[in-house]
């Protein structure tokens, strides 16, 4: 609690500046740094896939199927059709990340405002919560099948189906936080200053709910990546031969004993993506959480 640890004064009245607080908190969290680096590697791998991949992901080499890793020309081996696992992996990460990020965005962007409204106003709550219950009663596979039937199976539709499936839980999380926060004294204080409901929701409730939203988003992310695998396996998501981590996994099942490496590497990639998001998400939550005193 020493005064000396403060940032140097910048403001006109000598009040200092609050900028850089979250960044500096992230910098001091070793696990967060590790997560950030992993995330960076995964994202770079996805972005640079066309440059890094030795072959096009769909190119088949019928003369060299089931190659072991570290074979000449195929660093991670090949699958049943002789396609290069490394190339497919890089492009697979690209599609999986797209699906994951899109569906998380969808869940956050739609779920958060609805959750805030439901938590803040009883009238909205009755409508939103009942709709949430209905959506939860629908297996998301049916939504995915419906979407695929209407506009054909594609990456975008898979992401939308996965995102919609996660909206109800997001609404519930945000609604619960809102219910808790709106009873607090500082919201009462804001009301005595005639702050509008929008002011209270956006400036008091939302910032205090951020950590819960981030945690929920990092939970959704891996679910979406794995959900994409499921949808693709059923032919409702990404269409072969386009590679995705899910398709690679489900393909590799058939010859798991002949070429385990074809299943191990996409599995590891999924694990790495989930771990990166979880670690980074945790660090982000701690950075946003003002009541956390363990940093520094």
């Amino acid at each position, binding site marked *: *609690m020493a*005064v000396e640890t*403060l*940032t140097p*004064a910048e*403001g*006109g*009245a*000598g*009040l*200092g*500046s*609050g900028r850089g*607080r979250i960044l500096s908190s992230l910098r001091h969290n070793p696990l967060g740094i590790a997560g950030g680096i992993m995330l960076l590697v995964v994202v770079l791998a996805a972005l640079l896939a066309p440059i890094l991949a030795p072959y096009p992901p769909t190119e088949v080499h019928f003369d060299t199927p089931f190659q072991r890793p570290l074979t000449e020309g195929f660093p991670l081996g090949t699958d049943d059709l002789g396609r290069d696992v490394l190339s497919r992996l890089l492009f697979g990460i690209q599609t999986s990340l797209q699906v994951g990020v899109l569906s998380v965005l969808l869940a956050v962007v739609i779920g958060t405002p609805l959750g805030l409204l439901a938590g803040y106003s009883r009238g909205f709550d009755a409508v939103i919560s009942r709709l949430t219950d209905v959506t939860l009663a629908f297996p998301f596979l049916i939504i995915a099948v419906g979407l695929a039937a209407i506009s054909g199976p594609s990456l975008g539709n898979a992401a939308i189906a996965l995102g919609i499936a996660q909206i109800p839980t997001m609404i519930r999380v945000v609604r619960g936080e809102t219910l808790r926060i709106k009873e*607090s*004294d*500082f919201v*009462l*204080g*804001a*009301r*005595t*200053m*005639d*702050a509008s409901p929008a*002011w209270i929701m956006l*400036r*008091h409730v939302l*910032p*205090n709910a*951020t950590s819960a939203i981030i945690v929920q988003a990092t939970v959704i992310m891996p679910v979406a990546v794995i959900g994409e695998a499921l949808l693709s396996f059923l032919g409702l998501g990404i269409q072969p031969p386009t590679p995705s981590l899910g398709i690679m996994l489900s393909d590799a099942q058939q010859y798991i004993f002949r070429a385990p490496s074809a299943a191990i590497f996409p599995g590891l990639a999924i694990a790495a993506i989930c771990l990166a998001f979880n670690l980074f998400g945790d660090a982000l939550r701690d950075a*946003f959480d*003002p*009541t956390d*005193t363990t940093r520094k």
Partner: protein
Amino acid sequence: MLQDAENILEVTDLEVGFGGTPVLHRISFSMRRGERVAIVGQSGSGKSTAIGAILRLLPGSGRITQGSIVLGGGTTRGEVEDLATASEPVMRAIRGERIGLVPQDPMSNLNPAMRIGAQVADALVANRTTEGKPDRAQIRSQAVALLAEAGIPDAERRYGQYPHEFSGGMRQRVLIAIALAGKPELLIADEPTSALDVTVQRQILNHLQSLVDARGTSLLFVTHDLGLAADRTDRIIVMSEGRIVEVGTPREILLDPQQEYTRQLVAAAPSVAAALGAGTLADPTPGVPAPAAARSILVVENLVKEFALRGQRGSSIRAVDNVSFEVERGTTMAVVGESGSGKTTVARIILGLETASSGRALIDGESLTTTRGAQRRALRRKVQPVFQDPYGSLDPTYSIERLIDEPLRIFGVGSRSSRQDRVAELLDQVALPRTVAQRRPNELSGGQRQRVAIARALALEPELLICDEAVSALDVLVQDQILTLLADLQDRLGLTYLFITHDLSVVRQIAHSVVVMRSGIVEENGTVDEVFNHPTADYTRELLGAIPGAAFAA
């Protein structure tokens, strides 16, 4: 091992550290059999750590690093033990059976899903000395007897009730019954009544005292209230920052304190100060009131608030019943009452957070509940609240600058840089360094937070501050500082305060006039001198009598 066979407890050179940081520094004290000893100190003084060490229930990484805690052998059972080194099974036998604990918070220390009687019976079974299968009927009758002894009326019937059906005072009685279940020779009471109203507090402590006296139990009483300690014990140990500052009889400590810290504590202890009739911060007769200022700023007229009872259509309770009073500009009006007296509801109606069922609360002739638009905004700026809990009333995600700035932004006052200047000015006014501006509330102490809350309330230059228990969550020394700050601000800015409190001693310190409320009704209304020196209502007399430390008024 015991230096004196008459001692029940001897603590010698006790040191306790939390993860390498020492928090108790070689404290030594002893208690004689049947003696009542108080440990007085503010939060962080180490008093709770000391009893944690005695019971060997230190939280987290707490360890006894040095010293001994010798418990005298029981007259009927038990050996002389050094609690600092005793094994866990030995400690389990000692806890409850030889040392009983009455914990602080009656709300969270009872299992809400378990019947009261079963919880007492549990304690009886756990402390059973004889082997063999417990006789359920016998345990039950013992538990009922204990509850009745602890002062629970109709114990047989209430045996089967759940904690939520009990009031705070009744729950505390249950906790006392549980603590006495093992017939301990030493009873440790950790702030047993700080969550309770003063009149309830008095009943409970009277009862506890008679129980303890009848059984010849020694009592170690931990409290932050010097007046309470003086009233209830034979000897007071004053602790600060993990050290024992002074030990003496109540008379010695209160009337002839030897140490500087004790002197500060005595001066700041509101109950003692009130009883001694000294230390009033507010000038009881405000100078020469300017003619314009003589007008009442706040007029409460026949205010009634009824709440509908849930689940019972048509029936309602009157939280506020025909309350009327006036507050003169530039003075401090205290509204005193116990929990449930309706004092907070009055404050909420004045602040426009609740609407009155009938009657009016007028600020400069206008009411927040009926005005609209620009008129209401103008009125809003005249009245601002300071809440009780400085931990809950400040948004933890905001920096101090943003917190103080918020009312200005809501009302769209000034430009960015002029608001910054204003924040700096406000920080100066509440005597906070400008360097705290970028901190978050959780990095500040309770007193500092309450200063921030005051600065925030002052940002819009209000004329009336509604302080709802604004100092009751703070330690006495800090409480004293905040009250001084409020008095000082009143002098400089001509503010009017409506001070909602349950603590009559604080009233004496700060207020000019008082409204005493009970069950929604105004029992008495007058100047501080009238009410304190010539109370007309019985209830006021009862309240005044319940102020601890009153015995030392002479």
